[in-house]
């Protein structure tokens, strides 16, 4: 079992009433409300928390990336990955991930990640994402080619990492006549690639076809099981038997010494969902051409106010409602262990990303949560995972991709 | 005086005979000869050295960026700048700099630099460069629009840092309909911008027009003085009196316990100049459109072997004319005084180690520079009144100067 620590790195230092007034807190929330002094201090606190997470025994630190968005201070995950490469010693740096379509030069991205892997002595897990719809607008990347760019960028990066240069790439979206960077990742054949996602069918299939672990982000048990079924079917069709090492799950877990304290801190998980609409303003979130055409009807209905935005649970939903679904776990160490065991029973992941702190949770509270995780929760969960045979890709040294799986081992079934 | 430490971060761990066989060690020199394990270790050594640099009293650490080039392990200076933000506490992180034309999205660069400034608690100096000609080919960027892209990217980044969003940019090379990043630098109005160069007239003029310090990279004393003259002429047009705070100078300096050792290690500064031609393969370093039209004749002649490119003279002569300074601390101080008196910079970049100089010798060099050379240099600087932009509180730019009350203007 691989267990990583995660936080969105929220910035709650802007005047909240502005968000209420505007009805959104992303993309167009004027950045005159950006408080540089407060953010600089937040970065220092996050760094201390990450160092503590390493000390108490997490296997990894997960980072993500968002633009024009106070809910996540990672405007470029590679920058903070470099900070972690320097400030930590052995914990893996799990990027979930670099949004490929918003980069206009995948070779430069390959160089950056190569440097990170070398400096961190091989600790990079290089996840790739499409970027949210809103990200396409904030970086002015054409949403209509989002998936094409994702796939081509991925192919170019992996080739850059594995095929000695110089060679030439004349692609549909990217053209480089000399690919020969004088930087290569330390890990061979290349750093592990994990694919996070919510439920986009195309992404699940892409991950399974490449034998990349799929990390389901806070999806319900029911949805997650559907994702696993699709993944497994695809995996078998290309010829390998997918185990827990191909399944990742990210969920919100907050632990404190008492249940009251835990619930009080966990209220902040609602910060993004209840308090503001910004993270999922439906028009910005689904620019035309970004989503699968099969969802067009739902998209236009949401965008034009004819259907409730599924991503926004709204102010009427409470943390208790979320807890009752089982994929938000809050309480004392014992309660959290019990909840997590249920997650392991239900979903059998080999990779667990624990999203501990959000909103305005204080540094002290955040640190206490991390410590209790390390001291009490992680050992119990690791033991239980062992009992269930939930191995991570590292535990069983799984191939990093289908391309690097020996041909003889592949036995396609039901293709 | 601002004293910064610099090394190209050379990646010497490749089979030299392959470089000789290829006749070049840049751009097309196959990365199959790249040694990942050695590279990882070299980065660890650099980290240890940079920590010592801060400890012994340097004011800054300078980084640069090159692609497809064993002579420099900085494929992206912002990545290593983030490393420095995490491992140092006090030194300025001086990027000389981000090659602007290589980016397709200057707003993302502005975000990255803002994050570095925030994480380092305001220690960023954000230099900008055009990127060498070879860099354009390594990155697949059109050299014919290099200067246009440089200027437009610069304008867009400064506006992103200083003008509250959301607003729209419909430029010639860049279009962003929503500029409103939730990452802005800690320093106001924005981090200092220093412009390094090797005396390209257009760049000197551009820097002076913006009131940005110009950092001469390893130029001769004569060339350096010519740059200052041009800079002063433009400054006068703009309406400010340039001082040492507008002048930076980068020089190769190696210090060791004995004269012999210092000279032996300093010889490594010619590693790039002697062993391989890659740094300046004439066709790759001057792609059509990259340079001003008036240089076209000279460049095509060089590209076709009809003219010999002006190259650095031999090691002994470089030692002789103080292009390279090497020796024991006393001797180094003595020679630096000559340079400082002649060029009067307020910003001094000391390029300490290159080529195959060992980690141990690099550490010793840094130690000697910090403990013995820097205090003496600071005294000389005080004597010569060589102040840096921080000491005199110079406006970060002409635009910023215009916005300050006239009493604050230099």
């Amino acid at each position, binding site marked *: 079992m691989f267990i990583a620590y995660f936080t969105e790195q929220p910035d709650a230092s802007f005047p909240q009433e502005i968000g209420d007034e505007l009805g959104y807190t992303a993309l167009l929330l004027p950045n005159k409300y950006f408080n540089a002094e407060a953010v600089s201090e937040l970065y220092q606190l996050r760094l201390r928390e990450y160092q503590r997470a390493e000390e108490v025994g997490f296997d990894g630190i997960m980072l993500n990336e968002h633009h024009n968005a106070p809910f996540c201070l990672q405007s470029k995950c590679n920058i903070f990955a470099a900070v972690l490469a320097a400030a930590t010693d052995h914990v893996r740096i799990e990027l979930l991930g670099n949004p490929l379509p918003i980069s206009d030069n995948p070779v430069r991205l390959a160089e950056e990640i190569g440097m990170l892997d070398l400096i961190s002595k091989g600790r990079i897990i290089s996840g790739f994402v499409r970027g949210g719809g809103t990200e396409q*607008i904030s970086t002015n990347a054409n949403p209509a080619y989002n998936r094409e760019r994702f796939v081509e960028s991925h192919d170019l990066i992996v080739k850059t990492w594995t095929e000695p240069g110089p060679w030439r790439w004349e692609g549909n979206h990217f053209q480089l006549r000399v690919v020969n960077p004088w930087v290569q990742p330390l890990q061979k054949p290349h750093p592990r690639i994990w694919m996070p996602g919510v439920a986009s069918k195309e992404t699940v299939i892409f991950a399974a076809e490449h034998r990349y672990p799929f990390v389901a982000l806070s999806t319900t048990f029911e949805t997650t099981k559907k994702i696993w079924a699709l993944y497994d079917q695809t995996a078998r069709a290309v010829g390998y038997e997918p185990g827990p090492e191909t399944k990742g799950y990210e969920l919100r877990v907050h632990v404190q010494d008492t249940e009251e304290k835990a619930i009080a801190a966990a209220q902040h998980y609602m910060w993004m969902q209840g308090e503001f609409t910004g993270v999922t303003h439906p028009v*910005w979130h689904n620019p*035309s051409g970004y989503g699968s055409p099969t969802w067009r009807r739902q998209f236009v209905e949401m965008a034009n106010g004819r259907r409730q935005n599924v991503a926004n649970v709204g102010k009427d939903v409470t943390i208790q409602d979320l807890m009752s679904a089982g994929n938000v776990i809050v309480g004392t160490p014992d309660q959290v262990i019990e909840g997590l065991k249920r997650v392991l029973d239900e979903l059998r992941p080999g990779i667990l990303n624990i999203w501990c702190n959000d909103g305005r949770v204080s540094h002290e509270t955040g640190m206490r949560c991390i410590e209790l995780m390390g001291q009490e929760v992680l050992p119990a969960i690791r033991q239980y995972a062992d009992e269930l045979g939930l191995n991570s890709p590292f535990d069983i040294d799984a191939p990093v991709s289908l391309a690097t799986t020996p041909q003889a081992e592949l036995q396609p079934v039901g293709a | 005086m601002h004293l910064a430490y610099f090394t190209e971060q050379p990646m010497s761990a490749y089979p030299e005979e392959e470089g000789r066989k290829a006749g070049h060690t840049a751009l097309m020199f196959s990365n199959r000869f790249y040694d990942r394990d050695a590279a990882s270790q070299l980065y660890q050594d650099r980290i240890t050295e940079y920590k010592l640099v801060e400890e012994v009293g340097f004011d800054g650490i300078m980084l640069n960026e090159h692609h497809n080039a064993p002579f420099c392990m900085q494929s992206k200076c912002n990545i290593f700048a983030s490393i420095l933000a995490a491992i140092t506490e006090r030194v300025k992180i001086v990027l000389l700099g981000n090659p602007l034309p290589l980016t397709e999205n200057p707003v993302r660069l502005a975000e990255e630099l803002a994050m570095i400034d925030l994480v380092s608690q305001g220690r960023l100096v954000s230099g900008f460069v055009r990127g060498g000609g070879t860099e354009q080919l390594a990155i697949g960027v059109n050299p014919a629009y290099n200067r246009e892209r440089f200027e437009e990217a610069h304008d867009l980044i400064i506006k992103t840092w200083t003008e509250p969003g959301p607003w729209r940019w419909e430029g010639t090379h860049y279009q962003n309909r929503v500029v409103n990043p939730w990452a802005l630098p800690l320093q106001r109005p924005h981090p200092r911008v220093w412009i390094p160069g090797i005396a390209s007239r257009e760049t000197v003029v551009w820097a002076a027009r913006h009131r940005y310090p110009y950092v001469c990279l390893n130029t001769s004393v004569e060339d350096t003085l010519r740059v200052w003259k041009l800079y002063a002429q433009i400054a006068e047009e703009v309406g400010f009196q340039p001082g040492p705070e507008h002048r930076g100078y980068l020089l190769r300096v190696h210090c060791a316990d004995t004269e012999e050792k210092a000279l032996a290690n300093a010889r490594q500064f010619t590693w790039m100049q002697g062993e391989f031609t890659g740094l300046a393969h004439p066709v790759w370093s001057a792609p059509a459109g990259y340079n001003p039209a008036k240089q076209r004749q000279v460049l095509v002649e060089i590209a076709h072997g009809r003219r010999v490119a002006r190259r650095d003279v031999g090691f002994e002569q470089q030692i002789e004319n103080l292009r390279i300074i090497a020796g024991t601390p006393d001797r180094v101080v003595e020679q630096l005084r000559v340079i400082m008196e002649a060029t009067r910079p307020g910003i001094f970049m000391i390029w300490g180690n290159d080529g195959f100089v060992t980690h141990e010798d690099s550490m010793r060099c840094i130690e000697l520079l910090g403990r013995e050379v820097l205090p003496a240099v600071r005294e000389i600087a005080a004597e010569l009144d060589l102040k840096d932009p921080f000491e005199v509180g110079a406006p970060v730019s002409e635009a910023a100067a215009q916005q300050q009350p006239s009493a604050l203007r230099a």
Partner: protein
Amino acid sequence: MAVTEALPEAPEQFVEVVGEKIHWLQSGSGDSLIVLHHEIGNPGWLPFYEQLAQRFTVTVPDFPGWGQSERPLWMRSVRDLAVELNLLFDQAGVEETVLVGLGFGGWVAAEMATMNQSRCKRLVLVGATGVQPPEGEILDQFLYAHMDYVKMGFHDNDNFRRVYGEEPATEQLMDWDVHREMTARIAWKPYLFSQTLPYLLPGLTTPTLIVWGADDRIVPRSCGERYRDALPNSRLEVIEGAGHFVEMEKPDELSRLVLDFAGA
């Protein structure tokens, strides 16, 4: 897509060019007049077309990727689109025509005319995009819901309701989304204008009528002024009480202008 007001029907036809199926509506008699639609697509046989059809044979093609025309997966620029339409009318044997471009279709028309002046006898640009506005910006539809954006193209919301109804069906919203996607595919950046077209316009001597809605909130009138200044044989007319979608708000006024200009 059906419009709410009762409209005359126009015969439709599918033709093939560069291996792609193109859909067009055609009615009327007389000389050829081609109308090029907005980036939101053509809502049907509009009264404006019918009025022109009294004097001309009016053809309104769905652009490749719009309406019932097949999506060209390869297409990357508006100039590509203009070349394909020129090939289409070469194939159809249209030797002379009046080109009427509405909004985004105005850009397409201007591109087509610069490539083939001998076919384009008269050019009409209505609220045309295609040049960067010297003042103001072309409204970025990607920040607005589909319906809100279309409403912003009308001076009077009653006119929106007259054409599209109080609550357009979800199918209409989906059509707008498909058209918006196609707009992204070929005109995302720079958004709805060309950086090079202005340098070609001075070579276009075709008599040109430029028309702008007085209350166009989508394309600044400065674009019209820029066209007028660049085109040697042009004039600019402004229609009061109209937004961007002049042909839907003020069909009588617009058709009168066009017929006076081109129908003599």
